[in-house]
């Protein structure tokens, strides 16, 4: 039975099943957009936390680290309450839309991007900063130099966040509603099709998710290998 399901699943992938492709495309669109937003907002904050001293910095770092482990269903629940008709953002009519799913995933990935990028930036040898200053760099140029030195760590952080988003199900199920052809993504489809006992599509999507995860891991390994292959002088 398992081999039949696997055969069917592979056949769905190889034949480019329209429904399957649409679900994969929406998943990539939602998670990709969320990643762009969280990186655009998170990287400058991570740089600020890593390069500047300001009151409340330790508290902010702890807060971000705490939110890194926030359960997706809690994010989904809070956003549901905010976006539902009686919520304070209900007038926007975003509940059960891909936009709501993007917002949920942005909220989820933001602390991951900030925390991991912050770690990458503070891991840059302080001597790099001093060298840039000694060569006459302005504060902004020093910051850009440190960020450039942290680039492999930053890319790893963003890639890790993308992996987490692709595998996320709780929040997007709550705010997206898993509407066929509109807000149905890979993870929510797998959950639903498994409940229905319709395993072929679920397994096909599972294979695609695993493949994406593998590509992400390979990318991270390659970047970390590149970073680790030089010694610090």
């Amino acid at each position, binding site marked *: 039975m398992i081999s039949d399901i696997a055969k069917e699943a592979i056949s769905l992938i190889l034949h480019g099943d329209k429904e399957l492709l649409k679900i994969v495309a929406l998943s990539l669109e939602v998670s990709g957009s969320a990643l762009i937003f969280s990186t655009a907002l998170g990287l400058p904050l991570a740089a600020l936390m890593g390069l500047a001293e300001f009151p409340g910095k330790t508290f902010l770092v702890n807060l971000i680290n705490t939110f890194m482990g926030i359960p997706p269903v809690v994010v989904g629940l809070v956003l549901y309450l905010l976006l539902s008709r009686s919520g304070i953002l209900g007038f926007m009519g975003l509940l059960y839309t891909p936009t709501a799913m993007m917002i949920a995933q942005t909220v989820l990935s933001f602390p991951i991007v900030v925390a991991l990028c912050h770690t990458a930036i503070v891991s840059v*040898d302080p*001597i*790099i*900063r*001093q*060298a*840039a*200053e*000694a*060569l*006459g*760099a*302005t504060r902004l*140029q020093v910051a850009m*130099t440190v960020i*450039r*030195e942290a680039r492999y760590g930053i890319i790893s952080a963003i890639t890790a966040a993308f992996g987490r988003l692709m595998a996320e199900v709780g929040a997007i199920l709550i705010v997206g509603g898993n509407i066929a052809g509109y807000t149905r993504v890979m993870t929510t489809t797998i959950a639903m099709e498994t409940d229905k006992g319709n395993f072929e599509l679920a397994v096909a999507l599972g294979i695609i998710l695993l493949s994406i995860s593998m590509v992400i891991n390979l990318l991270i390994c390659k970047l970390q290998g590149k970073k680790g292959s*030089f*010694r*610090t*002088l």
Partner: protein
Amino acid sequence: MKLRLCLSNICKSYGKIPVLYNCSYSFDNGGVYVIMGKNGSGKSTLLRIAALLETPDIGTVEYYSEDIPQKHDIELKRRITLVLPKIGIFNTSVYNNVAYGLKIRGMKGKDLNDRVRDVLNFVGLSHKIKQNALTLSSGEAQRLGIARAIAINPDFLFLDEPTSFIDEENTKIVEDIILQLKCEEKSTIVMTTHDKSQAERLGDTILVMSKGRLNPI
């Protein structure tokens, strides 16, 4: 016009440990000044303060040009540079490392390219121009650090123990580079070392850091 540096009554402590105490000196003759002293005597701290990378607790660091005090702004900082003992090589090519100081000063195109190549020729690293700088040996890295600094034609070049972590052969190369710079008379060089014979080979003026102050030998 060349800069002169005047340190007046510099005091600096780290926590409760005093490092510099009422340290005063004027670097106004050009040439090579060599500062000697024991580990922890404050040589590196003095260089960082003189290079405007650290501020003293008490005292003043003044740069003069034609006896006019210069404001401590980015323009002045760009006429001074310090090569640290641990160089702080950027994770990019040798070319980009040398080009860094020039690019942030707005140089680009052929001028940039020519200047980088000239400087790398000068320190004997032109054959490594495309190589990632983090793959250089310690001696080559030290030469790259100097190349990066002299590329910007500084009025003051501070070298903090430029030969501490390199072998004899590379020490000789670095010393030759310093002697050539001395002949060119473009920069006033202030360097620290533990090696008395090196101080005598290179220095026009030799100073000893002791009890937080600079004293002529």
